[in-house]
């Protein structure tokens, strides 16, 4: 169930990497709670950078991002980190799983090393979540022994384990065949809806955009438009 209250608002963003010609400009974006939004565009247009800006990993030179009524520019680095840890779930393009840890430890990594000790609810969710994504039997295994599809499921679990308000997914289906791509998108969307989470995904795959409530297309010339 969506409500009309915006959870993410971005206005007049301008971002440049130091020493680079790359420039990302964006006039306005508003995403309401529970929306599944996808950012599309050709390779190199700044989709991932966009995601990093909205999630507070990078800071824009100008403009303002407000998430859950908090202006990111007003938060200290430590506060942004904590905010990210408590409110965001991440699915990275290369999954970013820690190889030497078990699946269980990977899924709980953000919670274990979070500033707030809230492992108990996460642990109680772990089995159910793992069962839903089909990796319940694999939890004690180490990441290094997993297939790519299994890794993706672990990454989805890690993004959802602490019941985040926003899920950032950066090309989570890259290099997957259509069948597995659909499985992963279905998984992300269904789990996000089950948790009433807002999804902000990046994908260059136009076949998948009909799964989303909102599509943001980044201009190949570094200009962006919102639809």
């Amino acid at each position, binding site marked *: 169930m969506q409500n009309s209250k915006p959870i993410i608002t971005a206005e007049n963003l301008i971002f440049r990497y130091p020493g680079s010609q790359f420039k990302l400009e964006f006039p306005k974006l508003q995403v309401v709670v529970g929306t599944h939004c996808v950012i599309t565009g050709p390779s190199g247009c700044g989709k991932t950078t966009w995601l990093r800006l909205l999630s507070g*990993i990078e800071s824009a030179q100008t403009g303002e991002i407000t998430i859950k009524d908090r202006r990111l520019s007003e938060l200290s680095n*430590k506060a942004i*980190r*904590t*905010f*990210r*840890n*408590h409110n*965001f779930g*991440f699915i*990275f393009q290369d999954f*970013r*799983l*820690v*190889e*030497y*840890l*078990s699946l269980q*430890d990977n899924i*709980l*990594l*953000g919670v*274990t*090393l*979070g*500033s707030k*000790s809230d*492992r*108990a609810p996460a642990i109680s969710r772990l089995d159910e979540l793992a069962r839903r994504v089909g990796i319940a039997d694999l939890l004690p295994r*180490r990441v290094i022994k997993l297939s790519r599809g299994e890794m993706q499921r672990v990454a989805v679990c*890690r993004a959802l384990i602490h019941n985040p308000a926003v899920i950032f997914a950066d090309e989570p289906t890259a290099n997957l065949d259509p069948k597995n791509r659909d499985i992963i998108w279905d998984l992300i969307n269904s789990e996000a809806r089950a948790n009433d989470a807002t999804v902000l995904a990046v994908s260059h795959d136009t076949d998948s955009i009909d799964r989303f409530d909102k599509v943001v297309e980044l201009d190949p010339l570094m200009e962006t438009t919102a639809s």
Partner: protein
Amino acid sequence: MIQSLAIMRLAWAYLASHRKQTVAILIAISLACSLPIVTTNIVSQYLRTLYTRRGNPPVMLAPQGSRFDAVLKAQYFLGEPLPSLQWQDATHITANTSLRCVPVHLLHTANDKASPVIGTVKEYFTVRNLNLQSGFMFAQVGECVVGALVEVSNDLIQTDITNPFDPSATPPLSMQVVGRLQPSGTPDDRGVFVSLDTAWILDGYGHGHDITDQGTATANSSVLADAIDGHRPHQSIRTIDETNRHEIHFHGSRNLYPISAVLIWPNTLRDQVVLEGKYINHKSLQVLSPEVEIITIMRYVFQMNTILQRIFVLLGAVTLLLIVVIIFQSLNARKHDLETMRLLGCSRLQVFKLLGTELFLLLVGSAFLTVVVTATLIATLPSLESLI
């Protein structure tokens, strides 16, 4: 608490998955720590052994030769047998009433060289303040009193072969153990004490045999080669007891029988100075002060120990440097994982806790290994007795 345990789990997972690196660090730290501890312990143990009787007696009469060897042998029963002085040298000095003299004969061993056989007089036990724990003092040839740590079976103790090239010349003698001394914490605890007569039987100057056994002529290498009445029985007594003790007899001149040293307690300092002056230019004998010699030895040991400690400090510094390099390399190799933690919004403090816990586990493991290595090395390293 639960979070701390979870962090410990993550730290353990990292160390376990990098076994070779972890084991290398554990070994490096534990060796860097245990080697100085072991060295210090062993050196202090050796020094304690040397310290036990450095000034008791104040002086001793010994044959000319190495002063260190003479002191180590006479005071601690360490090292190879020394050149001997003759019994007449001892009688000459023991006649002096201003000196308390105790001759010692230290040419034999028992229990497969584990126990020195000390031929001496009963006064030895008085001056060394040794008391019987059980039994009584030796009174006849073939009897012995053993130190607290000497192993005995069936109240008998067998001496070792003196001459391995001609074992039948002075075959091992089984001696009856008649008493055991209280522990003293000194080298006496591992000694087998016999009368001088028994010691000379072990030398081959005395023996017992059937009266009809005229034996053969003595070999040129025999201690009795120059004795007019010397001979080598076909079958000499190997265990002296009540039934055969009367058959024991000696050959040659008693005055020429050997002893190793005479321990001397002068009544006054003046008596000591007079004694030292008397032997200052003696051709074959010397009077020496065990304390002076021991202090010299201890000084050498201290110097060696100081040098070793400096080497260990350097080794420790190098080890520390290597460990720091390994840790930095490890952090470098984990950049991706640490970045992931940052992206997930993990608390900087908790990440430091994780790295600190890994270090803590390494240190705990190293401490445990240090204890094990130290205990093993101390337990297996040779004693001073076996080194000299």
